[in-house]
């Protein structure tokens, strides 16, 4: 009896995240970039493991985020001065992911409250960290907006609402398109289960994006043996120049 009470107390007292747990599968946890790499699609699927029967209400929603390696960036704004367009104001973004995709089972605003978004940094604007704007710039958020706008246009940033399908409140799956212009690194993948706007369970894993084969070899050579790499580039250039000249010389005869 005491044990039962203790269990009950634990259930009530502890955060509900212990009650529901994510079990995840990936179509592949590595993305290989070879010479004819032209973008890739990753299938993310999983199930919700529960200790007790799930409550029917409020409904469960699933949010999946995939985030590429973060790096600092500078956003510049052009202004017309003396009749020509020049870069004037600039804002430094401390850290912006090179790639960021948010996929949800319903509208993001419905499945996530503002405070939970701030805590877990889920939506695209929250994933970008910008701390200090210069004093002379009062509208620093327009610079962040511009960064998101430009990156969204090139599919580096994606907000895919309603693309996570959830079956029987238990099974979920989605696919994420990785663009052709992809940088190397560990792509942090997070899955959030939410109820009534609050995160009730979360799971993290990584997708490894790596160059392979000739791409790998050339990239490593260019960093570690840069002098040799430069000489090799020149040798190829000279040889190609000579080759074309020789072939054209033969053709004329």
């Amino acid at each position: 009896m005491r044990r039962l009470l203790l269990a009950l107390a634990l259930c009530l007292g502890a955060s509900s995240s212990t009650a529901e747990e994510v079990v995840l599968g990936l179509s592949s946890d590595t993305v290989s970039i070879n010479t004819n790499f032209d973008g890739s699609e990753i299938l993310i699927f999983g199930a919700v493991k529960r200790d007790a029967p799930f409550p029917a209400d409020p409904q469960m929603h699933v949010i999946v985020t995939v985030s590429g390696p973060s790096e600092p960036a500078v956003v510049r704004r052009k202004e017309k001065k003396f009749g020509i367009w020049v870069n004037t104001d600039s804002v430094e973004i401390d850290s912006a992911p090179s790639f960021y995709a948010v996929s949800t089972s319903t509208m993001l605003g419905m499945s996530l409250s503002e405070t939970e978004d701030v805590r877990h940094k889920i939506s695209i604007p929250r994933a970008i960290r910008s701390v200090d704007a210069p004093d002379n710039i009062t509208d620093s958020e327009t610079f962040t907006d511009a960064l998101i706008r430009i990156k969204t246009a090139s599919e580096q940033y994606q907000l895919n609402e309603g693309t996570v399908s959830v079956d029987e409140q238990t099974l979920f799956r989605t696919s994420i398109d990785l663009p052709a212009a992809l940088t190397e690194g560990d792509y942090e993948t997070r899955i959030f289960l939410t109820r009534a706007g609050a995160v009730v369970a979360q799971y993290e894993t990584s997708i490894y994006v790596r160059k392979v084969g000739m791409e790998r070899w050339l990239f490593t050579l260019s960093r570690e043996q840069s002098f040799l790499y430069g000489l090799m580039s020149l040798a190829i250039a000279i040889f190609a120049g000579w080759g074309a000249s020789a072939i054209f010389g033969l053709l004329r005869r």
Partner: protein
Amino acid sequence: MQIYLPIAEVSVNAFLLLGLGGIVGILSGMFGVGGGFLMTPLLFFIGIPPAVAVATEANQIVASSFSGVLAHFKRKTVDLRMGTVLLIGGLIGAALGVYVFNILKAQGQVDLLVKLCYVVFLGVIGGLMFFESLNAIRNVKKGKAPKRKKHNWIHGLPFKMRFRVSGLYISVIPPLIVGVAVGVLAAIMGVGGGFIMVPAMIYLLGMPTKVVVGTSLFQIIFVTAFTTMLHATTNYTVDIVLAVLLLVGGVVGAQIGTRIGVKMKAEQLRILLAIMVLAVCGKLALELLLQPAELYSIAAGGH
């Protein structure tokens, strides 16, 4: 056919690059310009990061210039002596230019300065060449003999040297100064400098147009080879896959261009180069004057 570039980290169409290389190669062989001032903006346009575009372009110019200069060697239209004098000046100038570039970079606005430099130089050079060649063509039609070898103050300078291929007997000071000036500009603007060198050789040094092309290509090989090594070892921005795609088109184009150039009259060659220079100038000027579609731009880095 899409190909992923290992250093640029973007995927591009291989045939598009072959075609671009070919077109720029033809121009290179015809006019003795490296073509960097045309190719670099084109590479920006198809989404290659600027730093990679500038560095890789230098490597491609080595190939197309080498291909072009071999064709000129066969015709004996390379003035090796003049080329060497210009090259010495050019390397001194390039070193000076890198120094100036770093000072300007520290003060910001280097992009604007480069663009303004382009517009002013391309505009002045293109305009002068255009009207001069137009007059030359008119004179030829009227039957007047073109006057060459004017005697002016340049011929009064000391350290005279005989440049047999160019048919000149002048002081080495003017070619050295031209070399240094072009070297400085080339380093600041990130190009081989052929489009400034060629008009300077024709109008300031009085060299025959046919010899100018080969000699310019000769010295461009060395300047761009130097630039390639500099970029490869300090910035790691030379993309060898991109370079190969561009240079395969480029070397073939250079061979074709050289043959077209030989068949054309000197005045026609000059007026075409002038039109091309003015077109690039006009495009850059419009970029500065018209409101861009996106006012914001992203650059990597920060502190």
